[in-house]
């Protein structure tokens, strides 16, 4: 499995162009439907990055949607039940999610790979049941209604979340950008190499002085913090949170987004996987054929794993396309390796 050198797939100019595009989109359209596609894709992308990071340490977690739920519920409970203002409760959502992951991770991550995944499945279910049963805090099956973030007044500039989708869009961009930056930096720093070592050869990694458990806990916790933020934002954007929204099957979707997008690129793969699969999912759900969305998602991951080289996904196809069409074709071979 080859980890992609970002420069081969996303040259600086392309990144610049994409960033400009993203910033300008609301100028072209303020259609809430279209904006919300971007917003929700962005939220899933953050959760997907978390999954990929954990995968990079050799663990397969089916609890990521549960951490979104934790973040969502914490933020909702703090604002609705305890009257806390939005921004502190948003921050706490991520922090609490991280703490839960840390405690869970310390106990559970020493368990072998397969067992870990089964436990994450259990965690997912347990979170759902707690949300369902702890009526007084979580609103039970009906969940909680989440108010929008308060107005922000910057000088003569007023940002009104209640009035339009555009502020939500920019906040999403901001959130995704911060997450992407942190994850990208983790990857290119010394930590990235250590994670890679643990993923491809844990025995060797241990014998080269790497304390596997420590790094797995780090990845698991960091992923949970940002996933918690994503969940809190998800609840805020949809104005509600219920136990069914973020269950095991959403965790499976996150997994599919990660692998189909491509795990060779921590940030790019997640972005492309989440965006493509989420948008596809919306259209599939509109069709009168029930069941086509999970069918396509399932088929997507099976096909990607069967036909693309290990560790690669859509992001690598993009890399090859970019080089074949726009740049030197030889670089396409390097990207292929």
């Amino acid at each position, binding site marked *: 499995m080859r980890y992609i050198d970002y420069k081969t797939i996303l040259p600086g100019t392309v990144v610049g162009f994409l960033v400009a595009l993203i910033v300008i989109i609301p100028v072209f359209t303020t259609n809430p439907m279209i904006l919300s596609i971007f917003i929700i894709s962005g939220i899933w992308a953050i959760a997907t990055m978390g999954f990929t990071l954990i995968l990079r340490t050799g663990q*397969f977690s089916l609890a990521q949607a549960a951490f979104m739920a934790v973040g969502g519920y914490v933020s909702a409970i703090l604002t609705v039940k305890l009257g806390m203002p939005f921004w502190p409760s948003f921050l706490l959502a991520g922090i609490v999610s991280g703490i839960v992951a840390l405690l869970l991770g310390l106990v559970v991550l020493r368990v072998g790979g397969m067992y870990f995944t089964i436990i994450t499945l259990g965690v997912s279910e*347990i979170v759902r049941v707690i949300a369902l049963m702890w009526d007084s805090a979580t609103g039970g099956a009906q969940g909680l209604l989440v108010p929008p973030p308060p107005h922000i007044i910057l000088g003569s500039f007023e940002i009104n979340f209640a009035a339009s989708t555009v502020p939500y869009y920019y906040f999403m961009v901001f959130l995704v950008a911060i997450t992407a930056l942190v994850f990208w930096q983790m990857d290119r720093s010394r930590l990235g190499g250590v994670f890679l070592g643990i993923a*491809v*050869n844990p025995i060797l990694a241990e014998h080269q002085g790497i304390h596997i458990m420590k790094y797995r806990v780090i990845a698991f916790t960091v992923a949970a913090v940002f996933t918690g933020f994503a969940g809190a934002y998800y609840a805020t954007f949809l104005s509600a949170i219920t136990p069914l929204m973020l269950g095991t099957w959403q965790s*499976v979707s996150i997994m599919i987004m990660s692998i189909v997008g491509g795990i060779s690129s921590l940030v790019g793969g997640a972005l492309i996987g989440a965006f493509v699969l989420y948008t596809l999912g919306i259209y599939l759900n509109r069709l009168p054929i*029930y069941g086509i969305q*999970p069918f396509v998602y399932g088929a997507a991951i099976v096909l990607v794993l069967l036909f693309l080289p290990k560790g690669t996904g859509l992001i690598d196809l993009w890399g090859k396309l970019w080089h074949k069409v726009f740049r030197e074709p030889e670089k396409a071979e390097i990207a292929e390796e």
Partner: protein
Amino acid sequence: MPPAILIDGLTTSCLYVTMAFGMVLVFSILGILNWSHGSMFMLGAFVVYYAVTAGGIPFPLSLLVSACVIGGLGILIQMFIIERISFTVAGLGMIYVSAVTVGLIFFFEGAASMLFGLQIKGLAAVLPGVLDLGAFSVSYQKIAVVVFTLVTMITMYIVLNRTKLGLAIRAVAQEPLASRLYGISVRRISWIVMGIGCALAAIAGGLMAPVYSVNPFMGRIPLIMSLLAIIIGGAGSLTGAIVGGIILGLLNSIIAYYLGWGSEIMLFLLVIFILLLRPQGLLGASPK
């Protein structure tokens, strides 16, 4: 506690035992955890349903048909999907196999929804009526489940311990390299084992079809339960899977009776607890 609860528990136990046995067989010999095991259960139930209602095939024969069809499906999955993506690289290879089999859950649920639709399908009780034992009564249907499960398990025992095939399977489980030297094709054995594992799931599904309704999502809970049974019994231990299945089935019914909800979660918590205390399960082998 009314004995009906125990009977119910026994029926569920049979289900979990058959499922778990199939899953552990695949896990101990192929080294992979087949997350789509629950889908095999579901598809098995559907095959039986259509065989009986549309094909007019008698129930026991339908079970056999289902076992063969789904067993065949399992073999195809092993041949064309799992083999192609399991690398010898430790760690990541297993993850890719898990990822693919989890993806298959979605794939099969979606396909079943599209093909068979969502209306609840019930299979009329194949053996109507009840056996009156004085203090309580048992439906013949439930007795049939137990009987069929016993038959299946005994068959499995015979195959694994008294046939050449079984010998080959056990050889591969213990010493894959040495087995090759004796002319055993490890690949072929893998296919056969996968086929058997999926066939067992299908039989469990078929047996349950008359008892519960048949729908595309019915495999989810049996999957979870067979995972839990493996953990309780210790992955890699076939007897462990059986013990685990029995315990889970009984506990499930008891908890459901007393609490009315969340039996699934209680069991999960119990299992997680066991896993953390004894990572090798109750009967599994001690790690190095």
